[in-house]
């Protein structure tokens, strides 16, 4: 009985969807993750209805598609993925969901960086599938985001030629904002002396940011996701911070705030806040859009890097 009613509901939904499309209502776009979704929303404006498969605050790396995702992607008129091995499952999912047009790869045409290009002794096991050796987090450089926007605009125009002017205007406006953001980041970080621009972080996602804005990101030694930190690990981390004269540290896997305080007190490095790398926050959070996310990261970095210089 239940399954019957569900089938009926699905039939009605499909019917509603198809009639909706016939009325030239917003075109349905499915993006793989929240940052991409935000960009599509900016460029598409009212003409598109964007769904993201991996929502805010969710991890794209560990994404497990559900049947409903397959259905959603199948009914989309445009599917946008990041590429570079970040969301390969998207392409497979689109095929199996019945989506026949080519999947738009937003990162097409950017200069890729090798994994770990932004830091030394990179021992993270950051497996992104087939994009072996290439760092997929290209959006961390706003210059690349401009390329994303161009690609998205071209794809939207292709899918919905009637809205071409609107898409072009939106892309132009948004690109202007992104250029301003890019300049803002350059200016703020450029105002710091070179030796202060050194950060330890457990995120492996800032290679492009490091490359574009001349900030050195080191991965922390000694601490991992173990349930309890070891004396050796803590000592190694403190030694690293002292030796490299690191100004700030952003680590997520030291979740005991008392331990962070001790490390910070002994190494002179400031414990920074939270950096967003792979996903936006929810609208209640500090990084609900791509621009807000980059700005939040910048402010967090600046706050940590400009506060009390290492006391040594």
């Amino acid at each position, binding site marked *: 009985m239940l399954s019957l009613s569900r089938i009926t509901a699905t039939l009605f939904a499909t019917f509603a969807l198809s009639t909706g499309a016939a009325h030239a209502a917003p075109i349905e776009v499915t993006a793989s993750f929240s940052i991409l979704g935000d960009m599509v929303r900016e460029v598409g404006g009212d003409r598109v209805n964007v769904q993201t498969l991996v929502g805010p605050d969710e991890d794209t790396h560990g994404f497990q598609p559900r049947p409903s995702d397959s259905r959603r992607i199948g009914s989309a008129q445009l599917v946008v993925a990041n590429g570079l091995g970040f969301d390969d499952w998207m392409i497979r999912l689109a095929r199996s969901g019945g989506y026949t047009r080519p999947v738009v790869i937003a990162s097409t045409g950017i200069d890729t960086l090798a994994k770990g290009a932004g830091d030394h002794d990179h021992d993270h096991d950051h497996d992104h599938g087939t994009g072996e050796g290439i760092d997929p987090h290209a959006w961390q450089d706003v210059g690349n985001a401009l390329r994303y926007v161009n690609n998205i605009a071209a794809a939207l125009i292709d899918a919905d030629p009637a809205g071409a002017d609107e898409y072009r205007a939106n892309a132009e406006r948004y690109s202007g904002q992104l250029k301003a953001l890019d300049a803002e980041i350059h200016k703020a970080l450029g105002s710091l002396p070179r030796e202060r621009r050194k950060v330890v972080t457990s995120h492996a996602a800032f290679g492009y940011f490091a490359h574009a804005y001349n900030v050195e990101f080191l991965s922390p030694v000694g601490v991992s996701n*173990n*349930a*309890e*930190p*070891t*004396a*050796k*690990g*803590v*000592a190694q981390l*403190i030694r690293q911070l002292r030796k490299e004269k690191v100004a700030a540290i952003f680590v997520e896997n030291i*979740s*005991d*705030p*008392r*331990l962070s*305080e*001790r*490390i910070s*007190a*002994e190494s002179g490095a400031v414990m920074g806040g939270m950096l967003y790398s792979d996903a936006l926050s929810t609208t209640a959070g500090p990084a609900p859009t791509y621009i807000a996310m980059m700005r939040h990261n910048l402010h967090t970095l600046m706050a940590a890097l400009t506060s009390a210089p290492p006391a040594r």
Partner: protein
Amino acid sequence: MSLNELLFAPFADFGFMRRALAGCLALSFGATPVGVFLLLRRMSLMGDAMSHAILPGAALGYLAFGLSLGAMTIGGILAGLVVVFAAGLVTRASVLKEDASLAAFYLLSLAAGVMIVSLRGRNLDLLHVLFGSVLALDDQSLLLIASITSLTLFGLALLFRPLVLECFDPSFLRAVSRLSPVAHYGFLLLVVFNLVSGFHALGTLMAVGIMILPSAAARLWTRSLPAMLLFASLSALASSIAGLLFSFHADVPAGPAIVLMCGLVYFASLIAAPGGLLAGRLPSRKHLES
């Protein structure tokens, strides 16, 4: 690796190691003597039960006020006291014996604790807290642990006579003095305090280890109470140092390393000590009674 690098440099170079050492020193001279009395009163397992009983209090304090030393301490102490006195009341007023009533209350307390822990979505933080953080002792925690140790030494000195009597002949004490309940509950108060103190340094799960293991080892070597207290405290301190160094050099978590070192001393004593396994088998010696 020179001797200096092996033994002294870790403490000389890193403040967190010195703090860990100071915390362990305090525990060795506070919690461990309490453990000796627990052992002698045949209440070794009660320490374990109590350590679970303080969990919901500490967890509630954490949930309400975050990682606040005060809130977690007060919460833990309150939960411990509620369980101790409720169990005592039931023991005195019903047919249940002390172990049964204590077991009932600590199990309830533990269940409540687990429920509270899982109510919070991000329970990972709390797990870290429950596992303790001997490597992350700040000034406040150290002060708290040291204060509890001072209080404990003072309290043990005050209660020494009645406690010793209760250890060896509880009915005699009850017959000759009305101080029996005072000694009993005063002692349980100290147990709760020291479990909370140990919980800040080593976590709820490990705190009992540094109380009971050195005490059991000491009991194997001597029947004299002062010698037992001294041996237990010194071996607890030595185990702490060895455990911290082991954690430092071998890259293992510090809390379990310390307790395992205590265990090593216990096993060595079990084999070699006069009260241990081998001694009893020797024909020339009289069998030692516990």
